[in-house]
């Protein structure tokens, strides 16, 4: 861009003619000009996402290891997938996560806490509607001791009657599931307290070695990790569960939850879609991102200023993902907003999104992509997702190129193939006395009214 700061001056040459001569800019003038506007962007550097080595132990537990020896630190996660639309199991997972700190069958909570503190690391238990996870971060020397603690707690947790009651008293579990669970969830006994027996049943069904994965990232060689994993988990065997399946009755497609006197209504519409391993899944992820937008999006334009909150979620899990659009609006606007959300989903099939919107969404993601891999904990989380979602080891290496290649037409084609306005499930939470009639007048089919607890 140097020519922009060149200075043309008139000089009289020896022949008496006059012609313009380009004079090299002075360094000061050149610099002042440079500093007044942003620099040109250079070329993006290549990036290869880390991959893991895998091994399945004799008892079926998957081990994934990604070595990184720059710092003496190891992050890890032990993961068990949860069935996202089984509300009861998800709540059991949340309670189980609280109870791990209560110790194991043969070791009390204080001894467990002592052993974790001696490792100097952190051990956390977390759950959401897709997984139950134990995560940790330690110096390599402390890894064997920490894995031994994890194995002891996970293999034989102390789900005693007292501990289960105490954990629920300390802070009650959400009595009703999330909006997503209400939209898709089966299982209706959600407001009941959990018993120790139900937790033990959960443990037998969900926390089984062949359902789990141990992900280790950082300063540990694969051979060492394998040996440590075998020491900690090889003897872990769980008898097959005996017909302890939970209620899987599909919910009605259109439900209206009564919330007497509420001034606002929560609305969700959505459907189950393809699994993350399906070739079209990435296009649907981008479609959700475009619909959600940054600031103004097609959805926010459609909903105008009436929505207090707008969201688009594509929640992946190994068998199938869920696509959901949600809004919180003033109560009187609820019926019209249901129609608008429905129309927004239908429009995704009818019209291609603009290239500008798609480029902005892809660009922000691709540019920031390498930064997602900065910490061992983040890499363990990302590699864990591959297990939870059934994705190939090379997924992250291929992702930027796959994203680059997707066009607005691909998004529209994926929407046509996988979003079905007729199959959309709908949930509205609001004062039924105000909104039931206008909702029925929309002609979207029969609504089933349920009471909030």
């Amino acid at each position, binding site marked *: 861009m140097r020519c922009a700061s060149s200075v043309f001056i008139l000089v009289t040459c020896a022949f008496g003619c006059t012609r313009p001569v380009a004079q090299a800019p002075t360094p000061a003038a050149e610099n002042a000009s*440079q500093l007044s506007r*942003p620099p040109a962007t250079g070329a993006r550097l290549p990036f290869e996402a880390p991959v893991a080595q895998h091994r399945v132990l004799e008892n079926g537990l998957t081990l994934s290891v990604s070595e990184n020896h720059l710092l003496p630190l190891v992050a890890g996660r032990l993961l068990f997938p949860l069935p996202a639309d089984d509300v009861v199991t998800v709540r059991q997972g949340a309670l189980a996560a609280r109870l791990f700190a209560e110790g194991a069958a043969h070791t009390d909570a204080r001894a467990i806490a002592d052993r974790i503190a001696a490792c*100097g690391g952190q051990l956390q238990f977390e759950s959401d509607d897709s997984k139950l996870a134990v995560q940790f971060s330690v110096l390599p020397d402390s890894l064997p001791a920490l894995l031994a603690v994890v194995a002891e707690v996970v293999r034989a947790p102390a789900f005693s009657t007292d501990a289960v009651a105490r954990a629920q008293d300390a802070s009650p579990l959400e009595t009703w599931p999330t909006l997503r669970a209400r939209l898709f969830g089966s299982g209706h006994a959600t407001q009941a307290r959990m018993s120790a027996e139900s937790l033990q049943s959960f443990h037998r069904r969900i926390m089984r070695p062949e359902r789990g994965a141990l992900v280790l990232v950082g300063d540990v060689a694969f051979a060492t990790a394998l040996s440590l994993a075998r020491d900690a988990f090889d003897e872990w065997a769980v008898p097959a569960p005996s017909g302890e399946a939970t209620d899987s009755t599909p919910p009605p497609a259109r439900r209206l939850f009564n919330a007497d006197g509420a001034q606002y209504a929560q609305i969700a519409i959505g459907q189950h879609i393809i699994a993350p391993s399906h070739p079209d899944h990435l296009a649907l992820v981008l479609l959700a991102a475009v619909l959600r937008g940054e600031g103004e999006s097609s959805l926010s334009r459609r909903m105008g200023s009436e929505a207090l909150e707008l969201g688009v979620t594509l929640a992946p899990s190994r068998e199938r993902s869920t696509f959901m659009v949600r809004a919180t609006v003033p109560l009187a606007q609820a019926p019209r907003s249901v129609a608008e959300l429905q129309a927004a989903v239908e429009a995704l099939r009818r019209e291609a999104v603009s290239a500008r919107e798609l480029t902005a969404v892809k660009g922000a993601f691709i540019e920031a*992509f390498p*930064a997602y891999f900065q910490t061992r904990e983040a890499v363990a989380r990302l590699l864990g997702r591959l297990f939870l979602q059934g994705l190939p080891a090379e997924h992250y290496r291929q992702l930027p190129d796959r994203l680059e290649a997707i066009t607005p037409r691909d998004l529209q084609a994926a929407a046509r193939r996988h979003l079905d306005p007729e199959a959309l499930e709908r949930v509205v939470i609001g004062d039924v006395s105000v909104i039931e009639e206008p909702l029925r007048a929309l002609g979207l089919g029969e609504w089933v009214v349920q009471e909030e607890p």
Partner: protein
Amino acid sequence: MLSLLLSCGIAVTAEFPVETYTLESNGLEVILSYDATLPIVAVNVWYHAGPVNEPPQRAGITRLLQRLMLGGGAHSTDPPPLARLRAAGATDTNSTVSLDRMNFFATVPAHQLELALWLEADRMRSLDSRLTQERIELERWRMIEEQRKISRQPQVASERAFYGALFKPGHPYHGLRADAVKRLTVEQVGSLYRRHCSPANATLAIVGHFDRQTIRETVARYFDAIPRRPGPEPRPIITTPLREETRLEIEEPTRRAYLRLGWLTPPFFARDDATAELLATLLADGPTSRLHRALVEETELAVSLSAQQQSLQLASVFSILVRGHRGIAPEEIESAIDRQLESLSRTPPSESELARAKTQILTRLIAGFERVGERADRFNRYNHYLGFPDALARDSKRYTDIRPEDLRAFAERLVRDGRVIVYTVPTR
């Protein structure tokens, strides 16, 4: 090369080459640390100016300058720096003000390094040329509004009273109020900006993936043209030791009583600064710590508690904060804490208890070097307090060198020294 000797006795190394130099044209310090693990780079600028440098009649000016500078320099206001950086794929982007300094930072894709440098250079070079009275007043009003909101949060009044008692009036750490800033003219703000944010009073750290052959030239392209400006006027400050115990009661609309105890302790990196941090870990880090066991588990006096050594430039603050159970008198909690401190002042902790606390601290220390942004900030912190950035080995050694007797002696000092105690009396 940074070497660490962990408490377990095994030496480990982490290779983070660090290089420093100063721009001749204006005195800007530059720290470079190359790491090509990922194609990202952190740009982190520390201005060695904070409330500690504020003239008494200009209290709050650092936060006002921060707000104005977040809007960008003369050429980078529209869109403002944060929006430009986010659009370019930046992560970990922000600015903070502590008692001792102000910083601006971003982690960007490696090919966007020049954008981040340009934004920081513009901010350092030309803020004063776009100052208007309206902008100054707007940001001052926003500060005051923000402080009003913060003032309504629990524990803020107690914390202010706490610092107010630890440090005498006129000391820069005495007041935490950012809304104390007076109405200032364009010329007054411009003059303070030119001094406090002069290149000679700043350090630029670049950590991550950059072109090692051309990086100095690139830095010079954006920062060399910034004129040399004098730094802040030196301000002689005397920190008066606490000779006695000061007790305060503050009423707050909370349901539970809080108890806050504090002592003045040695500054960052001085002898016993690390001892204080180890003591805080041993007393209150996690469910196995001494105070947790004594106050939460065994006697159920407290719901939660914490202890920390806040390491600062002039004098550090060692504090213990306890949230009591309903109906528990704060005097009862205070006695229980005193018993623990007196016990430690008589009998040193065991080697294994100390080793555990050391491992906890060293794990956190090492984890703080994972992100290039945190690493850049750490290099700047070492440089600010020690005068050189390559200090991880020295930092870790000051913990590993501590013996049980050092903790006993430090606990004895806490028992003997003057302190501040603030009871938060619940009014709900």
